[in-house]
């Protein structure tokens, strides 16, 4: 729907600059959840954000999705500053949170209609797009059943359809395979591959190393709010001298001086 910009500075689909986020915690006082993250994701790339629980992955993704305002630093989605024009960012973004985010008492078709309306899609175009997504994600068997009665895999497929309804150039997924069975996970992985082939950018967080190893063009290791390693798997292997991603991850976490989750 939106063509990627050709400006060399804004050519990255996702870019962050010294991104920081602090919270106040009743027990610990001020907690720096994200400390100066510099991130860049290209179009046609799948970028995996890896890190133990509490590393700051969700906070980074929420800042990119304009849900949270950065305490410091800047971020751009498809060339649009998340702080300056959050509504425009949301138009260019598909977001899938750890929960499926489906309304239990609506059917997948009604859900798609609802979110399509919120995206300002005209009715004929919206209906055509919904039919397209029903075919693409094989929703036809349950598209008119209420979401509360769907299996976790069916819910996830409906959620993905909802996230890409407006065909965004950037897709952000927070732990998208959490709670899914093998078949549903496989569907998700297949979907992410398809987005890459359509020159879309996919940024997803996970702590399942095998998924990252199999899918990601580049990987960022986030720990304690800092992104202290980023690159292709080959680059990370070369940096640590390890072969497998779990070993690479362990070595990088150990370098950071903290146990892996």
């Amino acid at each position, binding site marked *: 729907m939106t063509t990627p910009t050709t400006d060399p500075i804004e050519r990255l689909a996702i870019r962050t600059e010294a991104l920081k986020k602090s*919270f*106040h*915690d*009743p027990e610990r*006082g001020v*907690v720096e*959840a994200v400390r100066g993250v510099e991130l860049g994701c290209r179009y046609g790339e799948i970028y995996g954000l890896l890190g133990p629980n*509490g590393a700051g992955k969700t906070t980074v993704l*929420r800042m990119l*999705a*304009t*849900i*949270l*305002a950065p305490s410091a630093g800047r971020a751009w989605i498809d060339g649009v500053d998340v702080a300056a024009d959050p*509504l*425009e960012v*949301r*138009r260019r*973004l598909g*977001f899938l*949170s*750890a*929960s*499926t*985010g*489906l*309304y*239990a*008492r*609506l059917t997948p078709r*009604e859900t798609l209609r*609802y*979110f399509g*309306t*919120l*995206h*300002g899609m005209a009715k004929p175009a919206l209906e055509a797009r919904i039919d397209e997504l029903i075919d693409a994600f094989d929703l036809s068997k349950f598209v008119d059943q*209420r979401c509360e009665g769907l299996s976790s895999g069916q819910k996830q497929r409906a959620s993905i359809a*909802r996230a890409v309804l407006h065909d965004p150039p950037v897709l952000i997924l927070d732990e998208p395979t959490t709670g899914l069975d093998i078949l549903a996970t496989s569907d998700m992985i297949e979907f992410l591959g398809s987005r890459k082939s359509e020159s879309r950018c996919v940024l997803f967080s996970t702590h399942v190393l095998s998924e990252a190893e199999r899918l990601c063009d580049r990987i960022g290791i986030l720990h304690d709010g800092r992104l202290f390693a980023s690159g292709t798997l080959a680059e990370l292997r070369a940096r640590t001298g390890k072969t497998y991603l779990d070993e690479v991850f362990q070595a990088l976490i150990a370098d950071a001086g903290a146990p892996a989750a």
Partner: protein
Amino acid sequence: MNLVLAILRGELQRLVRDRRAFLMAVVLPVVLFPVLFVLFPSFSRMAAESLDEEETVLWVQLDALSAAESARVRAALADTESPLTVREDHEAVRNVETFQASALDPAIFEEDCDALLVARDGSPPVLELVVHGSRTRSGEARRRVTATLEELLATDREAGLLATLGRDPAAPLELEAVDVAPPDDSLGLSIGRMLPLLAIFLVLSAGSFAALDTFAGERESGTLETLLVQPVPSLFLAWGKFLAVATIAGVAFLLNALGLFACAGFGLGEFAGQPGAVQPVRVLLALVVYAPTVLLLAGVLTWISARARSFREGQNLLFPVMLAAIAPASLATQDSVELDFLLGAIPIAGASLAMRDALTGALGFGLAVWCLAWSAGWALLALRSVASALDAERVLVARAPGSELAGDARFRRAVAWGIASVLLIYVVGGRLQSWSLSQGLAATLWLLVPALAFAVAFDLRRRTGAGLLPTLLGPRRPRALHIVGAALIAPMLAWCAIRWFTWQETWLPAPEAGLQDLASEFGGRGWQLVLLAVSPAIAEELLFRGSLLRAMGTRRPRRVVLWQVLLFAAVHASVHRFAVTGVLGGVAAAVALVSGSTVPAMVLHLVYNGLLVGLEGDLRDSWLPAIVGAAVLGVGLLTLYRPSKG
């Protein structure tokens, strides 16, 4: 606007599919009055009829009566239409001389006995009816025997009076009241008494369910985060959700009103014998004057539920709102409460009374406009708060596990301390004052309240490292101008308090002693001032505007002031002084927040109580210009010389 409507449609689509929402918004309002008026009375009638048919056994011992009297009593008892079996010679009452009802074995009522009727010697003779009050049949026997004997005695009395005097000297006149009110006025009054109170219940229950589902429910299910990432301003989201809540609440109200009018039309329950219809113009006017109140309630429900972390927490937060809303609505049930311009300005109360008067045709144009304007004003205030209901950062982050804002946790802890302090003062202070009013009050103010203030301050120091003195007395040294400003405001507050008490007396008479009456119990004027002005000013301010206010923090001053109002009003444990002490608490909190010190609040409290005690409430109206002038100057001094931040 299209986006707001799209959100409204989506919300309603989900809500109407929820059985619980449908039940609360549609089924309950429709069936409530028919159930109240038809089913419950029917059940109750059936139960009464069933009891009427039940045989009850009465044992009599009438030896102390003359033969003629005994025969008349027996004959009257035998003539009752209810099945009452009269038996004689029960072993428990064979010896009347030694019989004592209090020594009777209650087990006799388990057998073939529901009541005993024992005649005792005397002038006149006494008939003692012994029953077992907790047994239904025994109670029924009492009702039957009492009714029969009272009728017998009344007949005897009347016959005797007529025979000797020709008429009853105790009833020199007969009173007959004739109501010439048109039937639709009477019907309107009957409906107007009921509708405001029941409407509050239904609007709040249906609206709170919708509000919780659209905010806390969405947060729990994880859909709120998805919604917040859509290209829709959060204001539109909040408005769409608010309109859904208002729609559900409005539908519940309309259906409820419809149910009541239908019952009236069919002459059911309360309306038996006067079936009819209220004039449509009156109905329309009643609905119009009440409509802003539905919006106000929907706004409050939206605002509160947007702050709840979960459905359950939302329910807990909404419960006090429901209780608070019932009190002003219940004024409409009191015939003695008349709508005036002051009551008309009070949220819910004004609209409830206006609705009642509209239905009876007694609502004048001026008062109707006045009430509507005030209700609309209150509703607009609530709508303003809706605009900030969906601040994504606060809604999601402040509520996410482990990422709670320190201020919120600190505030909740401070409120918990406040509630605990109020309860402790109730229990311990109340006990002390029940032993000796003056010494108990002194012990409460000099020991208990300061001890609580120090406990809160110690807790705050342990958690945040705050110093004890800055907590108790405020973080800044008091400025002389702030102290003078606070002292200048106090006379205005005292004048308002006195006028409020005078007005309140017209609709809520105070059975208890006022401050001045209380003062008279404490001996000399000097001792009164020490105990009722100086001591509260120091002790209460140390606790409320010192420790508790500092523990609450200053991040959200309106919330702090609101809780100060509630806690300070609550600690005085008096419905009659609730408003006045609440206002004092709120103003003192505002003074402490503005000045950054507890001392000006102490001075305000001292002058205020001192005026009420020292002048015994005699603040004359002729002083009003000076009092207003002083208050304006005081506010100016407090607000113009504000301490810089940092």
